[in-house]
């Protein structure tokens, strides 16, 4: 693959994102509001609970988990379904398909600039703030390395799932409905809205067999989990690698199948 092309696409994305600085600011404000609301919500929940810790999680554990999950969510959000869905409806997709690069990588590097900006402007600051406010909720050692690897793999899984879902738009001409289904399923089963620790046993068994928990829960467990051995870390990364391969292959194959069916209106 042409590295120079990938880099210039990324650079264009960064420039594009930087020209909408107000947008970044409002995302930041939105997150603050979200944090305030979940803070009060979980505070009320824990205050009403008879014990300090529930399922091994205290109030501050829960908050740290949810804040970091939110930071990861913002970092990985690519709006791919919307972008591709609109391109399919308008016919612009034909121009993207003509590019001398497979669409799956072209779309990735087109969003890569956003990812870089989000990484620097939301993920890193949030982690820093959590680290200082919580009084060192996570140690700064090998787990950080595992976390960043796991976050990248999680990003890949999330991207492939998004690409798969975006491909469905070729058949359905529906964007909103498809996207919202994907979003709610990922948010629930990845543990981003309720930490997986609070799930009932039976449900948890199912959740651990799905790829969604590998997106946010694995990196977060590697970062803040207590008493995780190096071996366990490698195992978790291995499972993530498995899901990257599975979702990647399905996304590519499904897209190839869909390309034979595509009808483009105008362009």
């Amino acid at each position, binding site marked *: 693959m042409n590295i120079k092309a990938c880099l210039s696409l990324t650079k264009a994305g960064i420039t594009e994102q930087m020209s*909408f600085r*107000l*947008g970044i600011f*409002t*995302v930041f*404000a*939105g997150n603050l*509001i*979200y944090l*305030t*609301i979940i803070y*009060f*919500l979980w*505070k*009320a*929940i824990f*205050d*009403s*609970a008879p014990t300090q810790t*529930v*399922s091994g999680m205290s109030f501050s554990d829960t908050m740290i988990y949810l804040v970091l999950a939110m930071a990861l969510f913002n970092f990985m959000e690519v709006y791919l379904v919307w972008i591709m869905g609109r391109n399919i409806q308008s016919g612009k997709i034909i121009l993207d398909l003509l590019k001398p690069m497979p669409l799956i990588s072209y779309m990735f590097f087109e969003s890569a600039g956003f990812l870089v900006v989000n990484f620097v402007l939301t993920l890193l600051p949030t982690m820093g703030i959590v680290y200082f406010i919580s009084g060192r909720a996570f140690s700064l050692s090998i787990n950080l390395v595992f976390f960043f690897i796991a976050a990248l793999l999680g990003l890949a899984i999330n991207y492939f799932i998004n690409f798969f879902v975006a491909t469905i738009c070729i058949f*359905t*001409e*529906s964007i*909103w*409905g*498809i*996207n*919202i*289904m994907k979003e*709610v*399923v990922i*948010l*629930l089963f990845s543990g981003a*809205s*309720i930490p997986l620790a*609070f*799930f*009932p046993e039976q*449900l948890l068994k199912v959740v651990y067999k799905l790829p969604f928990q590998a997106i946010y829960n694995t990196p977060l467990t590697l970062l803040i989990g207590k008493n995780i051995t190096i071996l366990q870390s490698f195992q978790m990364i291995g499972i993530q690698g498995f899901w990257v391969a599975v979702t990647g292959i399905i996304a590519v194959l499904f897209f190839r199948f869909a390309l034979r069916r595509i009808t483009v209106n105008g362009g």
Partner: protein
Amino acid sequence: MKKLQFYIRIYQKILVQDLKSKMSYRTDFIISTLGMILTNIVGMVTFWIMFQKFTNINGWNYHEMLFLYGFSLIALTPMQCFFDNNWNLRNHVYSGDFIKYCFRPINVFFYFISEVFDIKGIGQFFMGSVALSYAWIKLDLDVSIWILLKLFIALVTASLFMISIMNIAAATCFWIINSGYIMVTIFKFTEYARYPANIYQSVFRFCFTFIIPIAFVAYYPSLTFLRPDQIPILTQIAPLLGILFFILSYKIWMKGATTYSGTGS
């Protein structure tokens, strides 16, 4: 009165056109409705999971929370069905298309809003009714004409607040370019309308009551049914506040529309 008849007739005409164009995307309609229903089912599952490990939230039990949830879903429906075009406002303003709405001899707000009727709101209404009825039965609340009338008024009030919040959020695009983030952010708020407002402390409760009044979308109106012995004054004057707030949001929207200068295209 004649004017009202005129507007109703126009609305029917535009509605029929919109439905005709929607019907050519039948799959989209089915998938959107399914998406809406799935979203609401996941919302209820979220509550269910929470209440597996916790028994109450600040004195609100599972069924009361479900009541608030169902109530808020129904209250969101009118906004979803009739005011959905607000989501497209920023694109129209940005591209310059908005100017076409200014050249019609009818009210700009009315014409713009009536252009889209979003059918998928019906799925939400259905799920909201299921949740509300289930909670109503489980909580063993009375059923009488009087109560149902009160429920109707409470739902209308809540809807007015919801619509007004989104009107103002949409209208920001007349002054701020690319203000989609504002709408998304505000809309995120409304998802938290389903939680009882008494979990927030002083300053925030004030904000959610008077600045971004999401507490009126489910919490205050629901108190009439869930806490009948201690109804606060805000619940009693909520219908009036709802109407005033709607008028305010309309004025802001229209102010934006009249300052709109187009893009020259």
